């Protein structure tokens, strides 16, 4: 058995990569991907702990997170497509019509 702390460490690394990617990259699609990484880090945590504690709640939450993440991705892509039709860019720095 791999101890639960290994999974938690992996999840922490994934989460950090996700946060870094979100903050450092300017391509909107890559930013989405980073967010997905963060969500999956949480999923990994939940599943690992759930298995460790033999408690189902974590896995249930994971199911919901997966489903919601799909909906979120769909909406995000929809917004990007709408934006792309108007402005033809996916770079966050170029999407700055409103400031202040």
């Amino acid at each position: 058995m791999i101890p639960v702390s290994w999974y938690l460490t992996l999840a922490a690394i994934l989460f950090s990569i996700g946060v870094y990617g979100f903050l450092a990259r300017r391509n909107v699609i890559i930013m989405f991907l980073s967010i997905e990484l963060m969500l999956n880090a949480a999923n990994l945590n939940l599943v690992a702990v759930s298995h460790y504690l033999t408690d189902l709640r974590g896995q249930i939450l994971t199911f919901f997170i997966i489903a919601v993440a799909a909906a979120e991705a769909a909406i995000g892509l929809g917004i990007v497509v709408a934006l792309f039709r108007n402005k033809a860019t996916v770079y966050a720095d170029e999407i700055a019509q409103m400031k202040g």
Partner: protein
Amino acid sequence: MPGNYLPSEYTAVLVMLIFGLIFGGMTLWIGRFFRLRRPYAEKLTAYESGNPPSKSPRFPFSVKFYLVAILFVVFDVEAIFLYPWAVVYDDLGSFALIEMTIFIGLLLVGYIYAWKKGALKWDR
């Protein structure tokens, strides 16, 4: 703690992995000494037979692909709820059936929406 754990159960996997890498690498490396190497223009094209590629494959996809992809992702992922449902179906009986019918009914509204909006029509 990560330090205290010896992944001895996975040693076999590690050994297998190393052997696989060595075997694959060795085969290619040794092959270099024995194979013939006589390239000519025809051989160097992407496909030895058939048409040469007419343009770069790296052109932007039509937005329609994204639309279909979005729909696919949403409807595909909702199917994960069917798995736990199927597992406990025997225990819950008709209640589970009713619940799932409601759930599928909700999805159906989404489907009808996508349909009526023309999201499923390719040549629009």
